């Protein structure tokens, strides 16, 4: 290179950026290949996948923006692979496969990981990996998303770390066994091809990069990239006053029992280090919705710290060094085999982020937000497609309201804290791929936002009519323990799911699976609104008037909650009456 800094084994800040740009462009090309060639709506529309690069020793080097929950978890995948297949036995063209949270560092079983070493001049210099959510992985319910699974076996096919390809030759038997266990094998076959193609893209692009820059620069700059990631996070932690900050609360239930689940956290800041300890949280639960696997506990904790730091560059191994996570063995945040964990990832994992926000709200009130609508709010529907006779699975993560903040209202209709750049499935695409479902309404849920100086965002309501028989699974949270307000802000309205609302057959579900739904029924899925921030009486009356005009709050809400007197017809603000309301 043209310029070397003083340390012989270091690169200057300029070269560092050149290397970073090269690595992130390889990752974005992996993502493009995966997205554009995949088959299921969960990958091609929702983007529920993540591509990363590790260095030649298995340390996370760079990752794409995307789904936060994935980004902090990939090191567990690589560690499990290396434990079974050490780096020195890997050969070019080898591909490893896994999904098991307990033995293979997986998140939940639908998320299938593939890993491939990349060699240059005979040396292993990088490992490319991606994780992608498959629509179905077997198990007791279509979509493998069971709130009430009682053990890991009910959650689908288990893939320990296995060698899928040896020096470029695929073991087709593995793919055959895998596909034979899934309800939607054709979609998974295509998605699987896309995952492998993404790895090959990485190899191709990495080779052309290495041809130009060589592997020595990659090693030296990689070291520095990781150190730089660490410095960024430490700088942000140092801005938080030293001390231990605690919060506790309850999650709604575990899918088998509705007994509230106690959760607690103690966050300790000491200089540039942060420790997040979940001691005090309840014992692991029988039902899946109440258990957050250790991999997810660590990954969500890391993401929580990323929310509070400057991470436009994406995290790497170094970003996580200042973060220590603890949870008692056998607790809901560190459940032991064979505890079920799939749906708990969304429910308990999102709770975890919010719990840390609450704990830190007293010291960094400007950096945290009010309660969100909670978990991924996923619903799955499965059954037989009346036209084709084939099996269908509809799976979607729904959006809801986020909490208000120090200087702005919470965002409306946004995916959960852990979902990042995940998209919804357009109604028109959903009806085309799943004609048995007809969407009758997709709208904001008026009055769902928690009031505040800055109110929460609004949740959504989506109504499906089933045109054939179907089976439903749902895993919601924030029904009983609603999205919290901060600093005087009010709670958001909770979530709920109704079947045939307003009829004698009406049913109400929060965490259920195997629910039989007859053709012609209506499924109404309502997500929660975000919690408010600050005293509603301090809200700008003009903003209250706008919400009223937009039919998102009522005349009475304006008066009774916000202390704003409006003309019921015109929506004009009566200033005198408003002052009177607010001073009383």
């Amino acid at each position, binding site marked *: 290179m043209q310029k070397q800094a003083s340390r012989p084994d270091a690169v200057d800040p300029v070269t560092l*950026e*050149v290397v970073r740009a090269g690595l992130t462009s390889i990752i974005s*090309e992996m993502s493009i290949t995966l997205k554009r060639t*995949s088959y299921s709506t969960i990958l091609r529309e929702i983007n529920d996948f993540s591509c990363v690069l590790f260095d030649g020793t298995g340390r996370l080097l760079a990752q794409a923006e995307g789904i936060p929950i994935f980004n902090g978890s990939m090191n567990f995948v690589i560690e499990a692979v290396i434990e079974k297949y050490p780096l020195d036995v890997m050969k070019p063209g080898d591909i490893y496969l896994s999904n098991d949270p307990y033995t293979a560092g997986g998140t939940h079983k639908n998320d299938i990981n593939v890993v491939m070493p990349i060699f240059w001049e005979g040396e292993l210099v990088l490992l490319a990996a991606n994780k992608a959510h498959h629509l179905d992985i077997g198990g007791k319910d279509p979509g493998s998303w069971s709130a009430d699974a009682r053990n890991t076996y009910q959650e689908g096919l288990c893939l320990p770390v296995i060698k899928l390809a040896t020096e470029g030759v695929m073991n087709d038997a593995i793919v055959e066994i895998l596909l034979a266990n899934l309800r939607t094998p*054709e979609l998974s076959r*295509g998605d699987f091809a896309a995952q492998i*193609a993404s790895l090959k893209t990485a190899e191709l692009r990495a080779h052309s990069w290495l041809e130009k820059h060589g592997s020595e620069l990659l090693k030296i700059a990689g070291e520095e990239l990781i150190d730089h990631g660490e410095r960024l996070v430490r700088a942000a932690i140092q801005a938080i006053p030293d001390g231990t900050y605690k919060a506790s609360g309850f999650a709604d239930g575990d899918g088998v029992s509705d007994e509230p689940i106690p959760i607690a956290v103690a966050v300790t800041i000491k200089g540039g280090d942060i420790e997040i300890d979940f001691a005090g949280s309840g014992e692991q639960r029988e039902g899946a919705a109440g258990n957050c696997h250790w991999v997810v506990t660590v990954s969500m904790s890391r993401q929580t710290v990323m929310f509070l730091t400057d991470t436009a560059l994406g995290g790497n191994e170094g970003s996580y060094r200042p973060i220590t996570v603890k949870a008692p063995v056998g607790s809901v945040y560190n459940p032991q085999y064979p505890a079920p964990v799939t749906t708990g990832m969304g429910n308990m994992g999102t709770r975890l982020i919010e719990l840390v926000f609450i704990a830190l709200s007293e010291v960094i009130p400007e950096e945290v937000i009010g309660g969100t609508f909670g978990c991924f709010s996923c619903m799955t529907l499965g059954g037989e497609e009346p036209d084709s006779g084939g099996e269908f699975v509809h799976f979607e993560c729904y959006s809801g309201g986020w909490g208000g903040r120090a200087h702005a209202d919470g965002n409306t*209709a946004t995916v959960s804290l852990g979902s990042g750049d995940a998209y919804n499935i*357009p109604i028109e695409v959903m009806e085309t791929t799943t004609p048995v479902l007809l969407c009758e*309404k997709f709208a904001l849920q008026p009055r769902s936002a928690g009031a505040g100086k800055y109110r929460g965002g609004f949740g959504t309501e989506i109504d499906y009519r089933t045109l054939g028989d179907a089976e439903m699974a749902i895993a919601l949270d924030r029904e009983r323990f609603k999205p919290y307000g901060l600093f005087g802000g009010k709670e958001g309205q909770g979530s709920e799911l109704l079947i045939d609302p307003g009829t004698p057959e009406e049913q109400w579900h929060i965490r259920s699976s195997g629910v039989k739904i007859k053709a012609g029924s209506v499924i109404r899925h309502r997500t929660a609104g975000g919690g408010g921030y600050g005293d509603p009486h301090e809200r700008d009356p003009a903003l209250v008037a706008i919400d009223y005009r937009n039919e998102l709050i009522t005349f009475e809400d304006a008066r009774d909650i916000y202390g704003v007197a409006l003309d019921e017809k015109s929506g004009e603000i009566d200033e005198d009456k408003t002052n009177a309301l607010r001073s009383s």
Partner: protein
Amino acid sequence: MSARLAADIGGTFTDLVVLDSDGHLHVEKTSSTPGDFKSGVLTGVTKVLDAVERNTQGKMRLTLGDVQYFVHGATVVLNALIERKLPTAALVTSAGFRDVLEIMRTNNPYMYDLKWVKPAPLIPRHLRFEVRERVRHTGEVLTPLDEKAVVELAREIKARSINTIAVCFIHAYANPLHERRFREVFLKEHPDCVVVISSDVAPEIREFERTSTAVINASTVPIISSYLDDLSAELRERELKRELYVMQSNGGIITASTARLFPARTVMSGPSGGVVGAQYLAERAGVQNAVTIDMGGTSSDMGVISNGHALTVDESRIDGWPIMAPMIEILAIGAGGGSIAWIDSGGALRVGPQSAGASPGPVCYGHGGDEPTVSDACVVLNRLNPDYFLGGEMTLDTQSAEHAVAEKVAKPLGLSTQEAAEGVIRVVTANMAKAIRSILIARGHDPRDFTLMAFGGAGGMVAADLLRTGEVTKVMVPNNPGALCAMGMLSTDFRHDFAQSNVTAFDNADWGEVAKQLGSLRERGVERLVEEGLSEKEIDCSYVLDVRYVGQDHYLRVYVDNENLDPAEIREAFNQLHEKTYGYSTPEFDVEMVNLRVFAVGKVGRPDLPTYPARADRDELAAKDSRKLIFDGAAVETAVYGIEQLADGDRLEGPCVVEDPRSTIVIAPEQYGTVDQFRNVTIENRP
């Protein structure tokens, strides 16, 4: 005597180009007049017509009456969108879906940013209305349109004095009859209203993207209409006889009356002009494959020319709002002359995306800027002639630029000021190289097969550094780099793109029917072009099938011969394209078509560019000046040439600088430049 005139309105300057009947090019520049862009255009027109007389020493005098072809970009539309200065408009949707516009796609694009505020909807909830009707994805009507409700709604909207509405019904791309009937019934009650239906502007699947397109179109119809009406009237008064033409985002032109109906298709007309200009120039210069980079003050717009054709995309986003319309693919990145260099909290050097913009601008402009920018780094390296900036109209404040780079970059990094300045340029060009790679590789191209064409005010300044990134092997800086957009508009064809959704597996397809559908799309195109004054022999159509594996969503575009549709051949072409684009193909998987497309192009005569023949006497090209530039930490005596000195076949040994009143080209010591007959300079590494 006849001539062509193009006007490209930029944020700071409006560029005008006249190509006179003798094939001479006349270039002028005038300040843009935001708020009333028309007056800047009119000033510029006078200025450029005067220039014709001046440049020809009075031998040629042109009036607007002599201009047979006046094209310009519809910057008003883009500006109104970005500034959100849109007229009050309403949206009508199928019952149950009025919030689709506000819900968007539910994603959080900045995954760790808790402070990100989702964009406020383009139309507020109280102006979004629902009507009972429903169509399925097959086009089957499930619930008939409630026409009584349409009448009531029309009355209400009229009573509220709203004169522009967008209509988007679920699955209207599959069956547009409800939207059309709605318009008919509505207009009877409220005849003065602009009614934009989604099936007209974007007959494609995905309700949010289609709604957004319809809303953007509806909201900008009044803006473009009043602008074009005013401008046309003024130009007619000045004796312009022909109708005004407007550049579209797809790189073709349409008449002003068509533009009034489809303003959403003209949003990116300025940047597309640059790519089309580059395409034209590339063709003349014998360059088949080029990646273009138009580097301005705040950002760079990149495009791709592959085998002589500019690449297009079917959807893009403006400020987060999607527009479904074919557009020349433009990748905008936050890297320009005004991009700010800064040190992050982890101690790394970063450049952009924040920019000093036009105001205060880089420190060296002396307008109060105090953040070091890319231009300031160039000043530190003595790349810009402080006394010849904008042809001497502006003097550069070298000292302040050095001070800013020293204090804010060099000191924190422990580098010398010059090292820091070189670092800033390396970082910004690395970001640009990353973008070059992503735009090319996403399409399956190898950057090494491409010539980089660097233009815009700042393109030549960093051309040498872009070559140094190793991403490409040749960098061409076109003559008149600032006016390339306007030149593109002079060389562009009439163009209409038509698409028809037809999702059918190859095995089940009726190929006779496919040929018939392609034929009818062709007829629509020909009809539109004939209306615009073209004769049939000037019209050229190409035919495309969008193809994918059954089950995939994204498709690839396969050009076909509509006279002779051979499914096996098309399947094979698709497999090859998939292999080329994504590195693999699965020929054993079923294949389906998604859309049929016809691109109908009306060829206009291509203008000739002025040429500068090789020097007859073979005299050595003599530098007009020299100064010391910094390369790799050392001050190197560097020859300075004026663009007006260059002639076909000249070789420029690095290091050297070529100055033009509006831009500067730098060639590094290990590089050399060659000059072609148009005075384009191509830079390569010396072997």
